[in-house]
């Protein structure tokens, strides 16, 4: 299978990427790891006239710590590199170890994944639960977008034409906190039929004092489960209140219904996986 013809540019700096995007406007598409874009191009679901390859932009790779203590991960850092990096963020390590397969994890990038915003991708849920912020550069300068504002809808993000995600920032998890990711996947594609990520922090008595839970795969786009988060406040590990909180996972949600799973099944999975992921995150929050 062959994509339609395109012009190819290999950029070596962020400035060069931005100027190429300006120059070619809506005809241009950014090529990161390519493991969503290239298959779409081969199926002719996407036929960009211009590809701007950012694979050789060294500034877009690697890890650093920014002034507020957040971990900054360059947009072109691969899942494998993140899984191996000992970031101290359990859910992030976990998701980067199971997404796709070994070969895909060598190519897929954190910036590409989040920019693509596939409704069944694992990473958006984890980025939401870990309160990630995206560092974006574009024609209007540089800005930070919290993950929740970045996701606008089904495969739709807050990226404007000419924008590039240059890094993703994760605040430190903090003491007495833990995070986890649980998914039920399509056995053929590995994509999440339902995936839930959670981050919790416990107070001195062991009760939950802060909590973020996010869902992917089961609705139009990844999103926080606020009714669950609110119901988790003050809960103790092992208490029945955790199941009661998890039962609120479907509140206000319109679940997807397709050949892989209907809405009733996805609602059930969401409840079960929310309970499991909360228990796992709490166990890790020691």
């Amino acid at each position, binding site marked *: 299978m*062959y994509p339609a013809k395109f012009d*190819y540019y290999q950029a070596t700096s962020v400035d060069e990427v931005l100027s190429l995007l300006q120059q070619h406007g809506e005809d241009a598409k950014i090529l990161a790891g*390519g493991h969503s874009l*290239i298959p779409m191009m081969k199926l002719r679901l996407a036929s960009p006239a211009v590809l701007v390859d950012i694979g050789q932009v060294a500034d877009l790779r690697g890890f650093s710590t920014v002034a507020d203590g957040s971990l900054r991960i360059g947009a072109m850092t691969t899942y494998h590199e993140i899984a191996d990096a000992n970031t101290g963020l359990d859910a992030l390590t976990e998701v980067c170890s199971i997404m796709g*397969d*070994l*070969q*895909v994890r*060598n*190519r897929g990038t954190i910036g590409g994944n989040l920019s693509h915003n596939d409704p069944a991708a694992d990473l958006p849920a984890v980025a939401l639960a870990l309160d990630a912020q995206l560092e974006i550069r574009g024609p209007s300068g540089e800005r930070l977008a919290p993950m929740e504002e970045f996701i606008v809808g089904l495969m739709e993000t807050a990226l404007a034409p000419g924008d590039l995600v240059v890094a993703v920032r994760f605040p430190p998890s903090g003491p007495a906190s833990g995070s986890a990711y649980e998914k039920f996947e399509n056995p053929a594609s590995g994509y999440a039929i339902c995936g839930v990520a959670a981050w919790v922090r416990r107070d001195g008595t062991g009760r939950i004092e802060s909590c973020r839970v996010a869902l992917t795969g089961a609705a139009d786009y990844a999103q926080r489960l606020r009714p669950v988060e609110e119901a988790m406040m003050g809960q103790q590990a092992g208490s029945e209140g955790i199941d009661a909180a998890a039962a609120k996972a479907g509140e206000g949600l319109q679940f997807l219904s397709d050949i892989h799973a209907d809405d009733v099944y996805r609602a059930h999975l969401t409840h079960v996986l929310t309970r499991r992921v909360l228990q796992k995150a709490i166990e890790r929050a020691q």
Partner: protein
Amino acid sequence: MQVTMTVNGKSYTRDVEPRLLLVDFIRSELALTGTNIGCDTSQCGACTIHLNGKAVKSCTVFAVQAAGAELTTIEGLAGTGLHPMQQAFWDKHGLQCGYCTPGMIMTAVKLVERHGGTLSEEEIRHGLAGNLCRCTGYQNIVKAVQQAATEMGGGD
């Protein structure tokens, strides 16, 4: 556009269309046909090669993206004798029709290099999730990787 890359230790320069897939560059331009095209949709792993030391599916990379890179294909794996992974697939009969074998071996080599001799069966099965055998002969493939892991040892 012109691309140069090193494949199995030898440098090649070719003039290619940007949309030429790396797997077709390897097979058609360089006549190295050991790398197979299976599904052509990045599922099956038959086209797995090593790109700058990482196992990747060459049906989902454009040749131009690999400009300046070092590649190893199944033809470049053996030294004077078979690579321990190739020998293990032979010894354990880790193939039936053989179509998935080059990709299986290229992935398995990197899997063992990553985990070393302590690789568990679960890690092998998880690590080979991106390589499909339609003869469904996974049992002997896992045994072959276990044998090679013991011989190769090492790891991070």
